[in-house]
């Protein structure tokens, strides 16, 4: 009886759904016919593409952008070429376009080349001081010349602007950057970020007199003065269905190919988030492409590889001579073995978990799973606490508690109840986590699980720097596109490490590795002997190493010594190793790597309180000499021949970026579920009562017959 009612109700609903979809279909049809007309918000029907223009209340469909990425990896250095093809799809002769695209690069990327391709012609970009480059670009733009500009907004967020794309015309902007391969736990990894996640922008909106607003979804605020430049409009996930340019392709499709020359026999090669095709060359090199031609830019690409068993390098050295300077890059693995293994130390662990809206979707599920695993690993000698934050900060215990069945049970319940919602006010949570102090016998570790989608990085670094005390801060990046610049730097200031967990299936393995690591610091007090005063080394101070981490340094000087000695402590026993710098094959790009490290170090010094003008001059010296894009330098290319008739005006378009995969659109702009089961329950209740009446009647008639 009840099941029948269910069936009938479902049928009725099915019919009403059918009617609904019919009424929406013509609306989509109209949009396809007029792809490049501005529209008002209220003309928006289901699944319409939206993004803002400078004109309040009017929206423009974006020109499409195709990105091609080619990466070549030799040993520990990767060189990448990113080609972005801008297309002005407008058939209207008067529609000249300026395209602005915000895109992420790895946080250690050193961008040193810009090429603008128009048909067969290639125009090389020049490195200039940021303001000057901007002026060159603006002037060329006014004069109707094709021009492009690459600027750094954050160490891991860049913008490319292209002016004077004619109707129906394509321009390819190619940028080249270099980065180093990460080596940890015996595995090498390369990460190519594909999407700028929507960042939480704290503070109140302000208008800057001296700075025109960018095209992002956020206005500049007092705490994030460049907010409008780092918040590209967000692409709606369902947009792929009705893209007016190409009905099947996702916006900003990316194609990717990698040439990998690892320098040792490969044991394992893996791309955890994308399907890839691999072709091995006879000399051990690998050629990789995505299995699909192009993929939507909605999650970061990661490639990891491991050497065949017993083939792991223990020491790698590369050298380069550039001008009068010598550069050397060296990596050394500390010994790993049971006799060196120090025992687990007692710890006070403070877990901080981000439950802001940007974590909703799979991110919060991963974070919860990670936290539950972490709680499970605590031992009876430890103390712990759990802090969650979104718009407000909430603490489980008023102070850290010893690990006991009651406290642990409370914590597990607490974690299971966590829900993602609201803003990302990290500051109070960070202060709270760093505030407490552990007894000296305990190692105090703060473990921060977040996607780091914040814009006020500098403010947070300052807090970490000044309030760290004896604590160590470990950041764990969750989700498909965490802000790894923030998390890596935060861990650096916090004298801990940063780990990225990109998919739910990795949580268990990665968390296990992290906690094994945290329980056992391997090498402390590291320094390098044998360097004279003229040699500049980065990092200037080598951080503590945990299990599976190598020592990585880069040196520059007029004359490098033949051998250097690395010294440190394993537990309480001293450890030394000597490395020969002579007779190593030369490798290009070390100078760029060195320069990038130097710029990063200079920027950090500013955070430590150095005066901005001094920093700026120092950064300019390095960046201009090495052709590097930085906070103070940009690359600009100008085509000398004017193409846009000067009586035609230019429209500015911001390129949309996709939402990171797994991030929930509904939680950001969407519509919640708003039907109760009240009516259904009342109907079911009445129906069941009716059924009771019928059975009662049947029973009565039986009795009479009997």
């Amino acid at each position: 009886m009840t099941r029948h009612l269910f069936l009938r109700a479902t049928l009725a609903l099915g019919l009403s759904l059918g009617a609904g979809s019919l009424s929406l279909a013509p609306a989509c049809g109209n949009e396809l016919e007029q792809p490049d007309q501005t529209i008002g918000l209220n003309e928006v029907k289901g699944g319409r593409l939206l993004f803002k223009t400078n004109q309040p209340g009017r929206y423009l469909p974006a020109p499409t952008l195709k990105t091609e990425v080619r990466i070549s990896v030799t040993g520990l250095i990767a060189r990448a070429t990113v080609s972005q093809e801008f297309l002005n799809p407008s058939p209207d002769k008067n529609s000249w376009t300026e395209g602005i695209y915000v895109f992420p690069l790895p946080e250690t990327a050193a961008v040193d080349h810009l090429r603008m391709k128009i048909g067969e012609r290639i125009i090389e970009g020049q490195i200039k001081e940021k303001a000057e480059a901007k002026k060159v670009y603006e002037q060329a733009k006014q004069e109707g010349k094709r021009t492009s500009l690459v600027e750094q907004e954050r160490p891991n967020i860049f913008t490319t602007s292209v002016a004077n794309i004619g109707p129906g015309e394509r321009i390819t902007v190619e940028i080249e950057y270099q980065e180093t391969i990460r080596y940890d736990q015996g595995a090498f990894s390369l990460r190519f970020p594909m999407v700028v996640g929507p960042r939480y922008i704290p503070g109140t909106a302000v208008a800057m007199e001296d700075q025109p607003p960018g095209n992002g979804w956020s206005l500049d605020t007092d705490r994030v003065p460049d907010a409008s430049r780092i918040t590209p409009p967000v692409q709606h996930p369902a947009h792929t269905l009705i893209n007016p340019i190409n009905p099947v392709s996702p916006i900003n499709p990316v194609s990717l190919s990698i040439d990998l020359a690892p320098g040792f026999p490969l044991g394992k090669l893996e791309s955890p988030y994308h399907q890839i095709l691999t072709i091995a060359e006879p000399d051990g090199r690998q050629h990789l492409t995505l299995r699909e031609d192009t993929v939507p830019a909605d999650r970061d690409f990661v490639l990891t590889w491991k050497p065949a068993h017993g083939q792991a390098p223990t020491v790698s050295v590369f050298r380069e001579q550039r001008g009068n300077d010598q550069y050397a890059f060296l990596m050394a693995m500390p010994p790993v073995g049971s006799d060196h293994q120090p025992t687990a130390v007692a710890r006070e662990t403070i877990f901080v978990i981000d439950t802001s809206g940007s974590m909703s979707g799979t991110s919060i599920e991963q974070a919860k799973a990670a936290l539950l695993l972490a709680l499970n690993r605590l031992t009876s000698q430890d103390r712990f606490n759990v802090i969650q934050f979104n718009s407000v900060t909430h603490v489980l215990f008023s102070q850290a508690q010893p690990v006991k069945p009651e406290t642990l049970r409370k914590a597990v319940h607490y974690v299971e109840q966590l829900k993602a919602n609201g803003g990302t006010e990290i500051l109070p949570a960070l202060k709270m986590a760093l505030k407490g102090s552990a007894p000296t016998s305990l190692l105090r570790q703060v473990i921060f699980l977040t996607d780091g989608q914040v814009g006020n990085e500098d403010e947070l670094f300052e807090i970490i720097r000044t309030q760290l005390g004896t604590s160590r801060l470990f950041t764990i990046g969750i989700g498909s596109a965490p802000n790894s610049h923030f998390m890596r730097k935060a861990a650096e200031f916090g004298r801990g490490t940063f780990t990225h967990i990109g998919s739910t299936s990795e949580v268990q393995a990665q968390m296990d590795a992290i906690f094994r690591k945290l329980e056992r610091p391997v090498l402390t007090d590291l320094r390098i002997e044998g360097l004279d005063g003229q040699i500049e080394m980065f990092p200037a101070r080598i951080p503590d190493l945990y299990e599976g981490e190598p020592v990585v340094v880069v040196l520059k000087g007029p004359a490098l010594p033949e051998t250097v000695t690395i010294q440190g402590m394993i537990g309480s026993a001293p450890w030394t190793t000597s490395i020969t710098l002579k007779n190593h094959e030369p490798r290009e790009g070390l100078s760029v790597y060195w320069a990038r490290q130097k710029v990063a170090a200079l920027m950090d010094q500013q955070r430590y309180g150095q005066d901005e003008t001094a920093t700026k001059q120092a950064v300019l010296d390095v960046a201009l000499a090495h052709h590097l894009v930085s906070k103070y330098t940009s690359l600009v290319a100008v085509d000398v021949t004017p193409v846009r008739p000067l009586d035609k005006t230019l429209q500015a378009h911001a390129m949309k970026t996709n939402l990171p995969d797994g991030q929930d659109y509904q939680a950001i702009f969407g519509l919640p579920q708003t039907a109760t089961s009240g009516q259904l329950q009342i109907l079911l209740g009445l129906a069941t009562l009716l059924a009771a009446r019928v059975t009662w009647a049947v029973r009565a008639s039986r009795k009479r017959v009997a």
Partner: protein
Amino acid sequence: MNPIRPTPRTLTALTTYLLVIGMWQLGEGSWIYAKAGLAQHLLQRAWSRTLAGETGVKPWPWADTWPVARLIVPSQNIDQIVLEGAYGRTLAFGPGHVESAQPIGSSGTIILTGHRDTHFRFLQRLERNDVIELEAPTGIRRRYRVKETRIADSRSASIGIEQDQPQLVLVTCYPFDSPMPGTVWRYVVITEGEPG
């Protein structure tokens, strides 16, 4: 003729069983409506205290939400207290303010959402140019006029968030009279703020 001939005992048991289930469902269902009505009563009191200057006033001691606005629709005799947050647990008591859009009292796009069969049932009767008023905790009321109503697919539709144009968007589930919860359709009422 009939192969199954249940004994009177089974029939009694069945009848009792159906009676219990029926009463339970009826009770649960009615409780949803009762809760929706009762809560608003308590919320009105919390709202007066909010207007008096208190912040985050909990309408009952164990509540995890608080009133953030008062929604008034003169033509429909609607006077409801809006709660912070749009989750299942708050929507049972009143319409919810979607936190990810603009805050109450701002002059941007404010999104409110409510259950189609309780608080926001009146949305289906709203017509173009109907007046809706929203009172902020500061006591300031802003008038909005209905500009458009439409039905959207929640899987693909989006609402653009304006920063500097006053707009109030009311969202509920659709169709209104379907007894089944969990539909993908939404009824969206878009209103525009009157200047001033």
